[in-house]
């Protein structure tokens, strides 16, 4: 696995882990299942074989204690990478995250920072249901002292994970389960990618679509379709949600005069709320129409296949909304072709469950 190859997002994560652990013996990797047969969807493949059981280890089911232990290890010179198969489990660890990791450097006056990286995986589909598919990034993005990244492409997953690990601060690194299978060209050198920059994925003049993580994939599909309708959409991938790269976003909105913020979490109090608030405050006079947000509905995710068809929104809904914002009305069927054809609850036919 290497060399400017076309690889998957999970392979890119794996590559970064190998690079980081090779470059720096103080990097350790732990979490439920990091050394089990499934290897966290392949992302921890071969780590224990190569770096040994002292640096790569499973843990008891004890999320808060084990995060605190990682923080202590970080304070004493290690660079831990902790992994959770679901973000939902990590709710048990909020005391250590917020009261310790995020504040240590500040409350001890900059004497000691906490270089820990916490990989959180967002579940989706196949009935993950109310407690295995939450998108709580807005929580982390609200906490001073944390950095929070949500890379979309394999290359950025690789480079931003490397940077997260060498960053002296606690970084919450969020992976969407439906990105793991996405492929892309990935650099073979262990070059980190800054974790405070948004990326303009596609440039446009009529509207700015500002998205994160898997919603970027959908936004790009929408942008292509919009182009065919004569609408030029700019797509910005936030990449980092704390800090947010405001100059890139504001510049885009100054240019297009329209913003549609796309969140992968529940709408109310989401990161997209922050984006729309900031843009409205700052670019008010440049706005040609009301800013808008899209996010998940404000209810827990139901499990049933029959209840989840409209829970997530994809390119079709994004395109309709953007079309309306730029040109006014839009018939529902105009972008019908963007709706997926297979089962709505799997990223592709290859996925057969159970998780």
């Amino acid at each position, binding site marked *: 696995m290497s060399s400017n190859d076309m690889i998957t997002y999970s392979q890119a994560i794996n590559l970064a882990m190998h690079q980081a652990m090779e470059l720096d013996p103080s990097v350790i990797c732990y979490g*439920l*299942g990091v050394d*089990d*047969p*499934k290897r966290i969807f392949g992302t921890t493949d071969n780590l224990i074989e190569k770096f040994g059981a002292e640096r790569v*280890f*499973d*843990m*008891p*089911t*004890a*999320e*808060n*204690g084990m995060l605190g232990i990682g923080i202590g290890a970080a304070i004493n010179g290690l660079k831990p990478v902790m992994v959770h198969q679901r973000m*939902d*489990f990590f*709710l*048990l660890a909020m005391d250590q995250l917020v009261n310790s990791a995020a504040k240590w450097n500040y409350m001890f006056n900059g004497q000691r920072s906490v270089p820990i990286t916490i990989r959180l995986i967002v579940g989706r589909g*196949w*009935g*993950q*249901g*109310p*407690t*295995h598919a939450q998108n709580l990034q807005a929580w982390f993005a609200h906490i001073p002292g944390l950095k929070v990244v949500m890379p979309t492409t394999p290359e950025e997953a690789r480079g931003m994970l490397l940077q997260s690990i060498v960053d002296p601060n606690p970084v919450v690194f969020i992976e969407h389960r439906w990105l793991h299978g996405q492929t892309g060209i990935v650099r073979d050198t262990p070059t980190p990618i800054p974790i405070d920059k948004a990326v303009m994925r596609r440039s446009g003049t009529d509207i700015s679509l500002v998205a994160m993580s898997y919603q970027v994939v959908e936004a790009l599909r929408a942008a292509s379709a919009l182009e065919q309708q004569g609408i030029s959409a700019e797509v910005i991938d936030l990449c980092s949600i704390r800090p947010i790269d405001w100059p890139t976003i504001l510049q885009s909105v100054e240019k297009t005069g329209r913003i549609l913020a796309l969140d992968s979490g529940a709408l109310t109090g989401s990161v997209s709320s922050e984006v729309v608030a900031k843009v409205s405050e700052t670019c008010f006079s440049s706005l040609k129409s009301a800013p808008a947000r899209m996010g998940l*509905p*404000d*209810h*827990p995710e*139901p*499990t*049933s*296949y*029959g*209840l*989840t*068809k*409209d*829970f997530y929104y994809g390119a079709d809904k994004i395109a309709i909304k953007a079309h309306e914002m730029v040109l006014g009305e839009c018939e529902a069927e105009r972008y019908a072709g963007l709706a997926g054809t297979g089962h709505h*609850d799997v990223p592709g036919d290859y996925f*057969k*469950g*159970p*998780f």
Partner: protein
Amino acid sequence: MMSLSSTQAKRIYSMMQFIRKTEEAIADNYSSGQMRCPTHLSIGQECVPAVLSEILTVNDLAVSTHRAHAHYLAKGGSLDAMVAEIYGKATGCSGGRGGSMHLIDESVGFMGSTAIVGNTIPIGVGLGLAKKIKSESGIAVVFLGDGAIEEGVFYESANFAALKKLPVLFVCENNLYSVYSSLKDRQPAGRKIHELAASIGLWTKQGNGNSVEEAYDVCLEAYKHVLSGLGAAFIELDTYRWREHCGPNYDNDIGYRSVAEYEQHRANDPIATFETQLIENKIISQVDCSDVVDEINHKVAQAFEKAKAAPFPDERSSYQHVYAQESV
């Protein structure tokens, strides 16, 4: 058959078969892609729930985990509603909102199972607290695994249950694994879970969770202890999960446990063992056994048919029930 009457023994046998056949039907049907939710089977672990089904009454409340089918059925939960739930149907016990990991049948005191490890442990203790405050009869039963005891919330809950002498029975099915992680990677070598529980302040007992007689004695003694107001109890029952952690298949090929280990535990099949015993003791005949199984298979097949035929819940209802409306 010491403490068990032959009627009881037969009921326990039936319950074990009922659980097994239901789970096997799930396994057989899972690959058709219609049960679209994470599903954890208890095949091999039927004995403890079945034994408890003989002891617990409808006044006793229970909560469980991600691996809850057996507990739900043993508590008397509706088979049809459970299978429909796994199929995500409107007729499911949670209306399709919960799936395999969120079962409920309040009519029989099964108050809910949830998918976060350790999550229902304090909730079960709270059920017991309310029972005590309301001077309500019966006890609260908390089903949990050997992995769940690693969560701090277990310790906090056990401490409070012991402190207040609450009518709570913790039933720990130790199947040696948490997903693919063996006990030795998670808990200090040589430490016994039931001894740990005792030191927290709980009355405890340990036993073979694949032996109906032993499990029954352990459960009954613990139940009586709790019911008589002497305080919370914890029982640890050894057992083994035959299939993969989540999903319908066997997974002895993937390397986290040896085939030899699996075969050894497989030989302690609680159902086969008990069946042999019953036949040897002439409590039941081979033919009776077949009849029992046939009847169960029929019931299970019907449940699957009904579940498959049932409608999905109305998509537009997905906004409902975020909040309860009526004041309580």
